[in-house]
């Protein structure tokens, strides 16, 4: 596996990585963690399909590709991205090829109590010092280790105590690179302090003819006591993109989090969602939707970890798999020994739209407490012939009827999105895709 070693060396010795660790005196605070993560990645390597968590998703070709950081930054302007905004008034942070593009972002007039910026400008912030790089576990997740070892910029979103912001905050993550084999590390820290409430939408897209991009994103979200975070993840990139996304949420007492993942485009998408209900009376929703076409592979791995009593979680994942595409769903629910009075539910519904489509589902419950109500359900099938006949009998063409039924199937996931404007935008994107 000399190629694997070479790749590691290539990524780890790239100029950006060197700059971050050695050149900038401001990051000394994190230098030790970054070094440790680099070593951890070297010892873990790129997982193979022998690894139970990667059974259905083969990412070993990442090890055979010599990735480089893109030189292409700051090409986007505020005008160019206007149409991509989730709502007209959204607070937008543009991240171009892994680096914040301040010119295209609108961060000048933020509501009172909301701070958004690059890690480089917020190193002295107490919350950043406390949480940055602290929650996603690089010791067991090779791609978190790689991300930590190679990050060049990071976005921090901090909502102070009692601050409620209704305006959506959009992380617009755009790949404008034109080179082949580009590596884009993305790192986000969201801290919602006590009694605060925020809406975050992260959108991944790519422009131009970028060949073979590897996006490696790590998002860490802290939800403090009685805080509320609504989070939407939209993944709509080119089919040359391999996207690995690790999203970690740590929840405190009485907190609420709603997370919707929409995987609508990309070559290979792997989402690792890890929600820890770390104190009593937490409520967590996880919704997910996949539209997979051509040779796409979309893999959702979720972990809902009930560590404390009196919590509620509800998970709904729907997958539409067409052409030769493959869908993977693995939903783990852990109920720890002390987490009595837990209610945890999970539902996974899959539609196969072509003869060559494949769906691999593995819902998984691990329960260590007795006074709980937990259930999961998983179904895989095709569109109901009778529903189709019903519509066709009323003069609706077959293609239109199928689109209508697919839309109805998918829209349920969208219904959970709290912000009306964001929901509308997401539905528009979905409709465009389903046409």
């Amino acid at each position, binding site marked *: 596996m000399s190629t694997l070693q070479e790749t590691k060396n290539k990524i780890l010795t790239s100029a950006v990585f060197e700059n971050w660790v050695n050149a900038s005196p401001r990051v000394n605070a994190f230098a030790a963690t970054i070094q440790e993560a680099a070593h951890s990645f070297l010892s873990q390597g790129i997982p193979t399909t022998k690894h139970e968590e990667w059974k259905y998703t083969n990412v070993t070709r990442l090890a055979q590709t010599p990735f480089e950081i893109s030189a292409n930054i700051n090409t986007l302007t505020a005008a160019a991205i206007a149409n991509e905004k989730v709502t007209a008034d959204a607070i937008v942070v543009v991240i171009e090829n892994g680096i914040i593009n301040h010119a295209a972002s609108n961060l000048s007039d933020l509501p009172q109590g909301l701070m958004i910026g690059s890690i480089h400008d917020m190193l002295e912030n107490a919350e950043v010092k406390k949480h940055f790089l602290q929650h996603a576990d690089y010791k067991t997740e090779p791609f978190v280790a790689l991300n930590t070892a190679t990050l060049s910029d990071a976005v921090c979103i901090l909502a102070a105590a009692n601050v409620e912001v209704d305006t959506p905050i959009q992380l617009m993550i755009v790949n404008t690179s034109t080179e082949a084999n580009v590596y884009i590390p993305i790192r986000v820290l969201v801290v919602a302090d006590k009694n605060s409430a925020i809406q975050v939408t992260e959108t991944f897209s790519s422009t131009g003819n970028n060949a073979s991009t590897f996006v490696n994103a790590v998002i860490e979200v802290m939800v403090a006591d009685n805080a509320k975070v609504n989070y939407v993840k939209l993944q709509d990139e080119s089919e040359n993109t391999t996207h690995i996304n690790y999203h970690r949420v740590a929840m405190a007492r009485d907190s609420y989090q709603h997370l919707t993942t929409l995987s609508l485009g990309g070559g290979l998408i792997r989402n690792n969602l890890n929600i820890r209900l770390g104190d009593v009376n937490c409520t967590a929703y996880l919704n997910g939707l996949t539209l997979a076409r051509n040779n796409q592979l979309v893999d959702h791995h979720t972990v809902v970890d009930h560590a404390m009593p009196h919590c509620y979680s509800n998970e709904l994942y729907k997958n539409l798999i067409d052409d030769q595409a493959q869908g993977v769903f693995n939903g783990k629910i852990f109920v720890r*020994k002390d987490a009595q009075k837990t209610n945890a539910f999970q539902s996974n519904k899959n539609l196969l739209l072509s003869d060559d489509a494949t769906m*691999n589902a*593995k819902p998984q419950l691990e329960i260590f407490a*007795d006074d*709980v109500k937990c259930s999961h359900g998983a179904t895989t099938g095709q569109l109901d012939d009778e529903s189709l006949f019903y519509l066709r009998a009323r003069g609706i063409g077959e293609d239109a009827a199928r689109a209508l039924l697919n839309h109805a199937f998918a829209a349920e996931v969208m219904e959970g999105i709290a912000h009306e404007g964001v929901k509308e935008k997401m539905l528009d994107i979905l409709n465009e895709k389903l046409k």
Partner: protein
Amino acid sequence: MSDDLKILEDVANSEYKWGFVSNIESDNAPKGLNEDIVRFISAKKNEPEWLLEYRLKAFRHWQTMTEPVWPNVTYPKVDFQDIIYYSAPKPKVQLDSLDDLDPEIKATFDKLGISLEEQKRLANVAVDAVIDSVSVKTTFRETLLEKGIIFSSFSEAVHEHPELVKKYLGSVVPYTDNFYAALNAAVFSDGSFCYIPKGVRCPMELSTYFRINSAGTGQFERTLIIADEGSYVSYLEGCTAPMRDENQLHAAVVEIVSHAEAQVKYSTVQNWYPGDKEGKGGIFNFVTKRGICLGNKSKISWTQVETGSAVTWKYPSVILKGDNSVGEFYSVAVTNNMQQADTGTKMIHIGKNTSSTIISKGISGGRSHNSYRGLVKINKSADNARNFSQCDSLLLGDQCGAHTFPYLEVSNKSAKVEHEATTSKVGEDQIFYCNQRGISTEDAVGLIVNGYCKEVFNQLPMEFAVEAQKLLAISLEGSVG
């Protein structure tokens, strides 16, 4: 809560009822495993050359394999050199009638409550009893032979019907399949063989009783059932072992071949010694069971009631190769004290219009862990395949665990696959309802648990259903009347 705790304590204090040792002289092989032992076993059984070759091939393959670590169980590593691989009760003579049976063995069966005499007269069940490694007695052979049904010990079948054994041995579970299947193929000592000819409906239940008796032995039996076109057979299997401090290994292989329009129903009541309440001793039950529906419209149905063993690792599976074939899996797995069970099924759909049903009920108490692990695989060729799975877990304490690992792999769009799982405890309102009507908490739990398992018990043949209910009662003693 205090009632619950009391019940749990009582449950933990309940004892294994089948923990006697029969004082039968046995003829043991030396401890350990090497090619000589494999040759020794083969020679002891006077086996033909091809079977010895098969064993040696399996043994050599086994040496290249490592123990699987993926099951959700923890146990001390098995020392494969510290096991006696062959233990035959002496004197080893061919028996013609029950009267010739060693009185000690007969007493053993009487204690087990499966008196061969009684079974023969009343239950109309043909029994093949396997103690330690050797098949002791097969009843009703002549009656079955009239219909052309072959029901004998595996060793006899090797001599009397080598063509059948040669054709089907390893055809469903090849020795390359897994670590324990390879081990079994190398050292299997005896087991049952059953062949139902074309169009014959077996007039009675066929049954095998397995018992590990000698200390330090492993039991490696092999069962091969072949149902030819249009035939039907219902097969029962029961297991017990004496109480011992050390862990004993049981690594069996069951292979079922069901031809076109044939039906095989295989029921197991597994009650190996589960170890004491501190988890000392008990049987490691690492079993490979698999059936193949070779022809159109064939059917294989597994029903299992698993109450024993310290560690269980068992996935009775069906390969649905023929079009319109049907696979079923009904399971109740009870774990108590320190027991661990990782059990479930695999349904591999290959043929068109195949359907499978999985009903699994797990009950865990004490500090036990109960896992359901199942695979439903719909191949690209399996048009209109249908699967329904339901796996429920019931927790009877706050120190036990229930785990579900279902794998659903679907590669055909016309397939319909449904899976649902729930985990809960016995409802306080249900117990209250019973209490209110003068039913004690203990009886109420029994009532509820029995009702919970009813779907599976209904699948068992009548005599077995009664036994299964009794077993469940004893496994959960203290909570069930």
